């Protein structure tokens, strides 16, 4: 049983109430959450310090313009947060942040994590077309039933990790039929209990996972299989990989938006990955023909190798790919296999060591 706070307002309004009270009480100096800006209501993340600006926030809007873990890492890379802040983020963003903490790219100190049982987010493309708003009612209808709406990111439809692991506060969304009438906040940590003090609502003890998560999980797993098959990444043999990545234009935007890809300079952007004219001329003599966009599959393989264990399946990579390569499916497939082999769930806990930074004695026997 976990402590829960019920606020007699719709979940969207209840979460805003929470954020407002955190700022007004001075318990936090800033809140990182989604906000609508400008005439056309573009949605972006914002660090809000004035509680009056919470009005324009939209903490639960089904869009992930950036993976917030990346921004939080930038905030805490040089030094830990010197003042307390709250961050409202999706489970995959939180998990990615925990991975970045383990990789010493971020710091947990002074951050209150507010996450939710996650019904997914829409692809950026939909927001670009200005069509997210019209999809939102359908989104919430599906969420109340514990389902994902049609047209949310494929990565979300296939996501089994819709319950956050390390959130201080979990907002109940998936399968919550009362979400439009009242707000249920699960207070997972003593910190959470401390921070909601003074917020008017009803405290109670509740089951930590509000609905039938197993059922949702089974459905998502099936969806994962189905979608992965649709994009023909069943076997990931070299032929299939070459074909899948043949569209790659080498822009490496997948790595730029990836929360796990934190290298300051990617190997593939260094001198070492470049060749002099003589190299191409030698290749030309050997084969009569040199593909000038040749290292793309290599790049993707190396990226999978580097980030596979920490991939939280957020789907940001696939969303920004100019050539629409189903990168989410490949990441899930490869990352999933690596994670399974090491019994590792990225972002499950800060204490669980990264697979390649730790070992168990049996592994040596395996190698020998």
């Amino acid at each position, binding site marked *: 049983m976990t402590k829960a706070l019920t606020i007699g307002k719709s979940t969207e309004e209840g979460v805003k109430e929470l954020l407002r009270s955190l700022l007004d009480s001075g318990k936090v100096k800033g809140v990182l959450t989604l906000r609508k800006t400008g005439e056309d209501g573009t949605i972006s993340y914002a660090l809000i310090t004035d509680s009056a600006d919470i009005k324009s926030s939209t903490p639960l809007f089904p869009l992930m313009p950036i993976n917030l873990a990346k921004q939080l890492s930038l905030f805490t890379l040089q030094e830990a947060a*010197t003042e307390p802040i709250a961050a409202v983020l999706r489970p995959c963003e939180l998990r990615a942040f925990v991975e970045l903490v383990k990789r010493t790219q971020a710091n947990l100190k002074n951050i209150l994590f507010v996450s939710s049982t996650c019904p997914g987010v829409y692809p950026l493309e939909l927001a*670009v077309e200005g069509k997210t708003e019209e999809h939102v009612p359908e989104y919430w209808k599906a969420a109340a039933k514990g389902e994902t709406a049609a047209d949310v990111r494929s990565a979300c439809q296939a996501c089994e990790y819709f319950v956050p692991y390390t959130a201080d506060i979990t907002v109940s969304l998936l399968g919550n039929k009362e979400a439009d009438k009242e707000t249920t906040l699960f207070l997972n940590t003593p910190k959470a209990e401390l921070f909601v003090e003074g917020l008017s609502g009803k405290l109670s003890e509740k089951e930590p996972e509000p609905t039938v998560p197993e059922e949702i999980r089974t459905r998502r797993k099936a969806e994962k299989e189905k979608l992965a098959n649709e994009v023909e990444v069943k076997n990931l043999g070299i032929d299939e990989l070459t074909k899948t990545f043949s569209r790659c234009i080498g*822009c490496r935007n997948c790595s*730029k938006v990836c929360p796990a890809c934190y290298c300051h300079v990617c190997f593939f952007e260094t001198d070492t990955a470049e060749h002099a004219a*003589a190299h191409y001329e030698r290749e030309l003599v050997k084969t009569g023909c040199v593909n*000038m966009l040749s290292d793309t599959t290599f790049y993707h393989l190396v990226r999978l190798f580097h980030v596979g264990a920490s991939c939280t399946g957020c789907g940001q990579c696939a969303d920004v790919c*100019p050539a629409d390569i189903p990168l989410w499916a490949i990441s899930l497939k490869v990352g999933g296999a690596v994670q399974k082999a090491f019994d590792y769930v990225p972002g499950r806990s800060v204490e669980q060591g990264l697979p390649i930074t730790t070992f168990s004695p049996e592994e040596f026997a395996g190698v020998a």
Partner: protein
Amino acid sequence: MSSSRKGASLAVDGNAQKAIIEFAKKSLKQGAFDAVLIPCRLSAGDSFAYHLIGSETILEAASPLPPVMPVQGARVISSITRRGKGKKKIAAIMRPCEARATIELAKLGQVDLENITLITMDCPGVMPLSGYFEDADKGNEVFHDASQKWDSQPMRPVCWICDKFSSTGGEDLHIGTMARKSGSILLVPRSPKGEDVLKKIGLSLEEDVTDWEASVTKYTDQRKQKREQNNKTLRAGIEGIDKLTQAFSACINCHNCMRVCPICYCRQCHFDSDKMKFSFEDYLSRAERRGSLRVPTDTLLFHIGRMLHMSLSCVSCGMCEDACPTAIPVAQIFTLVGDRNREAFDYVPGRSVDEPLPLTTFEREELEEVEQSGTGVLAGQEN
């Protein structure tokens, strides 16, 4: 528009693409070049990539006019010659905007043109990548039909307003396909290098270019009008800091526009450097000044910085717009800003490799202008 009033004709049984391949094969065979840099369809999948080809047989499989531009050709030439020229003579067969970008990169010290011969063709435009990849077979059909009719509608928005889709004079040799019979191309030399190629493959300059030129001029004028109109409409939508901020409000700071841009060559962009990583307290105090701080921060500053650095050399190829995940009309905005900036310097990127970059040169009057406006401000005349 042409320095020579005559061109050479080459005809094959087939279409312009076949004729271009035939020309490339002849050039290889006659030793005009050691290799040809040309787009090819990839054997796996449905995309295209530049290939450096030294064999006539392999050249058969080339696609000189692919429906999409996955990588800007100038970047390819730069990756071959940035560290110095090679020993082999290479013919680069590419679209006019790619050749123009190559010339800009040569001026910027990122390309060595000595062993490169730039060969361009009349360009019907390219389709946006994502539209094409949704259904490549259909894309091929649409492209084929549209390019026959010189209908730019299915192409990148900057292709609709491209008034430099043909020869601009900076290239060594131009291939005219407009107003030609199917399978017949017009080879127009634009430099001694280009003339030399035609000599080597035994083609003489006997073909009249009047019809082709008239056709090009007609389309150029139409495109110029469209461009002016587009610039005007766009300007109304982005003028002033509020509207400009709004235009870039969906930017997620991925910098993909910069990475696919042929002109943006910096090894490390200032905006990706440590200089743009601030302390927690900096972010918090910036937020506190205004009540909230949009993140990622400094996105508009990035675009303005990029504009300042490369818009004079921008060839409006449209790579940036195609690669933007949030469909910001980057290429059109940069075209508008670039056109105005270039007008001030009477500069056309890629027109000539000998034409210096505006910021590397000056005219005496410019100094006087600066001096006058400077003293004017000092003397309080501005008020």
